[in-house]
């Protein structure tokens, strides 16, 4: 099927197999390998991207479902060499170890802060429910998001 999608501000037209997931489309067709696949049941959140401004799990969306949508992936978060305040906060607070869940965490964090610029610790933890991290115990991810909120509100 023919689809047209805007990804990180650039519009692409591709003929894709209807069964291809958005995550596979990003990784295999567009070489945007920052979107990771840790499961295929929306369980781990490593594939989290933004579809029309809201976070979504790219492993359980078909590429054909996002025809006409605007997608943002981790590759679209930094402004050239300048990292997004959320990315900076993750580095500053050691909010990542192996880095595999990190793109999904950053995309989810952006969604949490978009909807709630001053979240409590509890709200952050609730917002992170759909994303697994096996390395950090979430401690420093929560701190990173708290720190990012402070910076973005300053």
């Amino acid at each position, binding site marked *: 099927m023919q689809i047209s999608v805007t990804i990180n501000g650039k519009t692409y037209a591709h003929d894709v197999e209807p069964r291809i997931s958005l995550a596979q489309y990003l*990784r295999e067709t567009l070489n945007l*390998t920052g979107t990771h*696949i*840790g499961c295929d*049941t929306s369980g781990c959140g490593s594939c989290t991207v933004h579809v029309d401004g809201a976070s979504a799990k790219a492993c359980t969306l078909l590429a054909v479902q996002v025809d006409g949508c605007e997608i943002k992936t981790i*590759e679209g978060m930094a402004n050239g060499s300048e990292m997004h305040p959320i990315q900076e906060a993750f580095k500053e607070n050691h909010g990542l170890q192996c*880095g595999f869940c990190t793109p999904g965490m950053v995309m989810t964090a952006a969604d949490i802060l978009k909807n709630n610029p001053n979240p409590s610790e509890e709200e952050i*933890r609730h917002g992170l429910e759909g994303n697994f991290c096996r390395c950090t115990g979430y401690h*420093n991810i929560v701190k990173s998001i708290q720190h990012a909120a402070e910076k973005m509100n300053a």
Partner: protein
Amino acid sequence: METFIGKPVKRREDNRFLKGAGKYTDDIKLHGMTHSAFVRSPYAHAKIVSVDTSAAEKAEGVVAVYTGSDACGTIGVPCGWQVDFKNGETMREPMHPLLAKDKIRHLGEAVAFVIAETLELARDAAELVDVKYEALPAVTCPKKAMASGAPKVHDEWEDNAAFDWCIGNDRAEVEAALANAHHVTEMTYKNHRLAPNAIEPRSYIADYDVNADKWTLYTSTQNPHLVRLLLCAFALGIPEHKVRVVSYDVGGGFGSKIYHYTEEALLTWASKEIGRPIKWTSDRTEAFLTDAHGRDHIVHSKMGFDKDGKIVAHLTDEFCAMGAYLSTFAPAVPTYLHGTLFQGVYTTPLIHLNVVAPFTHTVPVDAYRGAGRPEATYLLERIISKAAKEMDMDPAELRFKNFISPFNGTTEPGYQTQVALQYDSGNYEGVLKRGLEMLGYEDFRKEQAEARKNGKLLGVGISTYIEGCGIAPSAVVGSLGARAGLYEVGHVRVQPTGKVSVFTGAHSHGQGHETVFAQFVADKLGIPMDDIDIVHGDTDQVAFGMGTYGSRSLAVGGSAIIKSIEKVLEKGAKIAAHKLEAAEEDLEYAEGKWTVKGTDKSISFGDVSLTAYVPHDYPEGVEPGLDFSSFYDPTNFTYPFGTHIAVVEVCSDTGKVEIKRFVACDDVGNVMNPMIVDGQIHGGVVQGIGQALLEEVVYDGEGQMVTGSYMDYAMPRADDIPMIETDRTTTPCPHNPLGVKGAGEAGAIGSTPAVVNAVVDALSHLGVTDIQMPVTPKRVWKAMQS
């Protein structure tokens, strides 16, 4: 001059990870690369009656289909550790085939391998492979596997035992002491099976280059050189010097990516057959079915005390599952990584552990974060808390009574245990004191008493652990059955401009080696961190190495780098002395330059480096260049220790456990980067909490896994966990140059019993003395009702 050791330096790895620019194996694409899929058994135990691949072979885009009847069916992957029976019989070591031929021995065992032009076409064709099975009864419980009449995993032996083993004092002596003890506490439970669940699934690409007659294997591994050695010398019999194993970024491992897996060997074999690169990446359910699991011990234990509460003897019998085949380190886990920690932090004079390790119709069990040591710690820390309750003593007081006294391992000797090891240095009462202080233990007990009056169920649980890390002195592990040495390699290449490349055989899968190693190299050489690059994960670049596991990277790998730095400075001093026209012994090295003592005459590290590569004005008899490699084989394990304390509240209506506070005071020796050590502790603690409250791999009676996805296997999520309160004491390791002990596994070792002790404490006034892990609301509720 800026120094870096002990400072929370931000990680240099993070820039690529945060931008989505990490290079994990599945991110790699090679020209002409094919994709692959496995046909896996839906039975845990079955005869393979027939395999028909004809439809699959004709399917669109299929390049090749292999089964156990092809040449690869005669190839197996090896086990790296041999533990023989107590009676001298050799360990039973079955062939672990790349593809099953006649018989299936665990759910998910591979029967056929399909290679096609795309992943989708490979998966389509795999569905066309027609396998006829004759299902057989299966046994998944290690204790039931040893019952008479149990279904046999391997027909060639009379029962399912892979080996049995014991350690410690004479059993009769221990039994006699228990018979005479003032009080005996007894426990029977299961330390249940876990799936490691690195979020990056295993991924491999094998690429055979026909013109060069060389193989490259890209793999998500914790130890590239070990994989190459096992692959070349034992699995495929191909020349090691013609094989390059590359592992760029690895998305977590926790033990599960140590082992040489059948898929690595099969892809490497098949790549030569088809003359093209092949990629395979596990999906999550395949990961549950085929990644080596952890734990799975059935435990029966008795601990005896005298009238003052001093431990007099400890006797334990365990059945420990091996799974269907022996994975790389599997036999070491319930034996030398487990029984050797039965001393714990206590002066127990008599200890005996007996282990029976049977094959089961399950995926192999091997090292998972802590590997044998969490199982030992869980037992010791649960049984001592249970004993305290039975003897009406405070659990902290009972521990203080039994602690080994502090010793530094330098002016005071190490502590010789009853179970083979000699601890390096320790101050066990120090960490418990600090942990209790962090918690405000006495105040908490008052709060708890008040809460109980109001029907609120609050509990506190203490765990005071020790672990054996810095794996390992080669001669010691060799005498214990290891088939490899466990030294590490560190290579320091000073470039002509004074910039430094450091090559290490340790391999980060999240630990931050690129930052931490550069920190101490910078301090030792007195040069900026920016002038140092850390290279790892490529057998063509790094001379050799044993990889990262057992909290060994800094203690063993870091020490190897230090040895090479010493060689660089020693040779540099000869060059500096020549240039400064001074005697070597008159020089001192500090802040990146050699200075003639008492003068302002000096030469910088950079100038000496350049001179070494442009040796025009050069000392006689000294070779050009400044490039040294060293092997470091430790003289002992390292023994980190600590205290973890959990506070929980149990909901009286639902049995749900909420962790209100978690306090961790750890002693990991000297600390290079406190930010990273804290991060390791946080992550380990949460994995341990996961075992205590949430996670379990469950096989049903037929060997079907009922927890094969994230919908069914309960991993800790952000809202299950509180902030972790951390602090440290510092007791340096006396036998390695950095004085470090390792921090990777501590969290997962200390936390699990702390949580379960807390839950039992919360319910103790209701008569609850034990609850089987994972402590689910259902189990808690049942315990409260009974």
